[in-house]
């Protein structure tokens, strides 16, 4: 009985470990690659950083001019023509390969053994953050100018969009939720039904009409335009969830405050908001992540101006125009993830609570 339990638990933990590994490997591969040399990324898989058996170069032999390259040559006891060496010859424990052309090339002697790629640096991050052009020094001392990217600018723009786009809708929603839960006014039920009904409206429907308004008002491309759009799109869910929370708060507390002569505004700011912190925090995390990670709204309302673009837009642009520049893509992708992952790991408790309350935007 006891041993079968142990086998059971072993199987459960084993399967779970394999699933977790599968889930994290794509991200880990990206993270590792972002620190690798830009040429290495494109030449070998990121897993080569782990110790593995491969051909390792042990010696480079450059034969003198007296060796006739047109005749069979002998190295390490192997005799072969130049053409054969160029293709590479494998013996039991050696691989001999001619690198370069006939006259100035050299013979690379490789041995099969343990190795691990270990060329790590922060170069890729510098290149993707620092500016539009980037000068790199190659191994042989020559310098090349490469196109990098200006993601540090985009990072700040993303902050400028994400923080107000979180605070504004939640403030509006909190006021409205309190109003719906604790105030008496005409058409209250009907207006709340409207809020719930609007949960179904996909934001695609609203993009073009709002864009037309912005063009007319000369608002397009400004931060305010994006804040207002996110506010509109986030409000139904925010109001609905905060209403669910606030309407469950004990009635006695509010009545006691009213008897003491407190106004609605005072009760709201001094009593209800502090009591609602768990709900506010949970939803704020989701709204923040949603706005930070949003691509479509930014694409439409910020547009193509590189100085104002957000992180997701810059990253998507590199994917589109330079999809094989993995050194930029890997580092860039990680820069876009830094803040969300920090928020996620720092505030996981609220994150789970928000999920359970239905904070997920369909």
């Amino acid at each position, binding site marked *: 009985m006891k041993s079968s339990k142990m086998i059971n638990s072993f199987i459960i933990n084993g399967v*779970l470990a394999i*699933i977790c590994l599968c889930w994290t490997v794509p991200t880990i591969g990206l993270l590792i690659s972002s620190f690798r040399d830009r040429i290495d990324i494109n030449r070998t898989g990121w897993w080569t950083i782990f110790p593995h058996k491969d051909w390792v170069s042990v010696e480079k032999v450059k034969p003198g001019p007296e060796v006739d390259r047109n005749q069979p040559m002998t190295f390490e006891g192997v005799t072969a023509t130049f053409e054969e060496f160029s293709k590479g010859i494998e013996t039991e424990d050696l691989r001999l390969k001619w690198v370069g052309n006939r006259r100035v090339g050299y013979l690379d002697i490789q041995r099969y053994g343990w190795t691990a790629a270990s060329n790590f640096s922060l170069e890729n991050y510098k290149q993707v953050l620092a500016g539009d052009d980037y000068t790199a020094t190659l191994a042989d001392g020559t310098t090349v100018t490469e196109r990098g990217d200006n993601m540090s600018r985009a990072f700040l723009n993303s902050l*400028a969009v994400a923080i107000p786009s979180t605070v504004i809708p939640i403030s509006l929603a909190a006021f409205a939720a309190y109003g719906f839960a604790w105030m008496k006014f005409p058409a*209250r039920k009907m207006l709340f039904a409207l809020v719930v009904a609007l949960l179904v409206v996909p934001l695609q429907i609203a993009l073009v009409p709002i864009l037309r*308004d912005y063009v007319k008002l000369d608002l397009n491309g400004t931060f305010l335009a994006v804040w207002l759009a996110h506010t509109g799109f986030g409000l*139904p869910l925010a109001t609905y969830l905060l209403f669910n929370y606030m309407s469950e708060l004990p009635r006695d507390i509010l009545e006691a405050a009213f008897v003491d002569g407190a106004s609605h505004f005072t009760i709201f700011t001094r009593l209800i908001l502090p009591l609602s912190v768990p709900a506010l925090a949970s939803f704020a995390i989701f709204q923040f992540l949603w706005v930070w990670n949003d691509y479509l709204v930014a694409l439409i309302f910020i547009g193509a101006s590189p100085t104002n673009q957000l992180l997701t837009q810059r990253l998507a642009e590199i994917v589109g125009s330079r999809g094989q520049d993995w050194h930029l893509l890997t580092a860039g992708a990680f820069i876009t993830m830094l803040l969300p992952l920090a928020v996620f790991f720092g505030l996981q408790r609220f994150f789970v609570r928000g999920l359970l309350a239905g904070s997920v935007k369909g």
Partner: protein
Amino acid sequence: MANPMASITSYSSKSRGRLVTGILALIPLLVSLVALVWGFFFLRDIQLANDSNIPQVVTVFMAIIWGVGGVVLLFTTANFFIEQLPDAWVRRLQPVLFVGPAILMLVWALVLPTIRTLILSFYDEASANLIWFENFKFVFTNDAMLVVFRNNLLWMIFGTLFTVSSGLLIAILADRSKFESFAKALIFMPMAISFVGAGVIWNFVYSVKPVDAPQIGLLNSLVVYFGGQPQAWTAFFQPWNNFFLILIVIWLQTGYAMVLFSAAIKGVPSEILEAARVDGATELQLFFRIMIPQIMGTIITVSTTIIIFTLKIFDVVIVMTGGQYGTSVIATEFYRQYFTYNNNGVGSAIAIILLVAVTPVMAYNLRQFAHREAF
């Protein structure tokens, strides 16, 4: 308050006095409004000017202060003004202050646009001539659009099926494991990642090199290791390429399903399970006869949420394939019609179809949601 008679006799003069102070109390609100409008123009000019010599950090900081502070300022000054008015006015205006801004935003950002889009969908591509249902007819008969609907169907069925089942499986395994919280954190970490970021991660996994070169993509290198041919998984591998895109969303959303199922499983009363075990039920019977019925509500909530999610899927497809190679979905096709072809009519019709498709699922989801407690 102490002497009710006194307050009644002095009511009219007091009321008039309060009206005057009320009007004076309007001043902070007006000043804030003016300051905010001025601030807006100032910020817009430095944000949109390319040659601004103000450091970007300063601009961004000011914009955040302006946006966040502006909301607080407007609510506070507006309330200050309202509270100086006679009581009857306070009762009338305070609900407007609380609920009004949200309703106003909703009407402008969602209600009116829905109506406007509906109207546009009956007009031709330049929104000039009324052509009634021609756009819808085009959408439902065009071959490319039929592929789009097929793809969304694939997303809906397989995305939902695999997300729900893998979420459930992981929740059950984690529930019996000692490393529950660690494993769960790893599984739902992708939820914090943007779709564009996820697109890059998976583009890297799927990346392909010529047959004779070493593969740098994990998938192709495994395929080659086991003797297969490297493939461009998301491009020419039709129609299976859709599944490689769907896999990304399963990866992103399983965490959500897992968290909800995990909570639901813990809510199943252990007495019922114990009783069934005593009666000799096997683990499989326990799962299908007791666990599943007990968490049915959660299964429906998760499924409908994922269905809505897959109906609206956009970012993943746009980043991975741009909607090419037969992977286009409703939302990407909407974007292409509107912004690439400038066809307002068809674009609007697609948006309306999306709304109609989402509505019944959402209605069902909300009905289910009403049975659960919040937070």
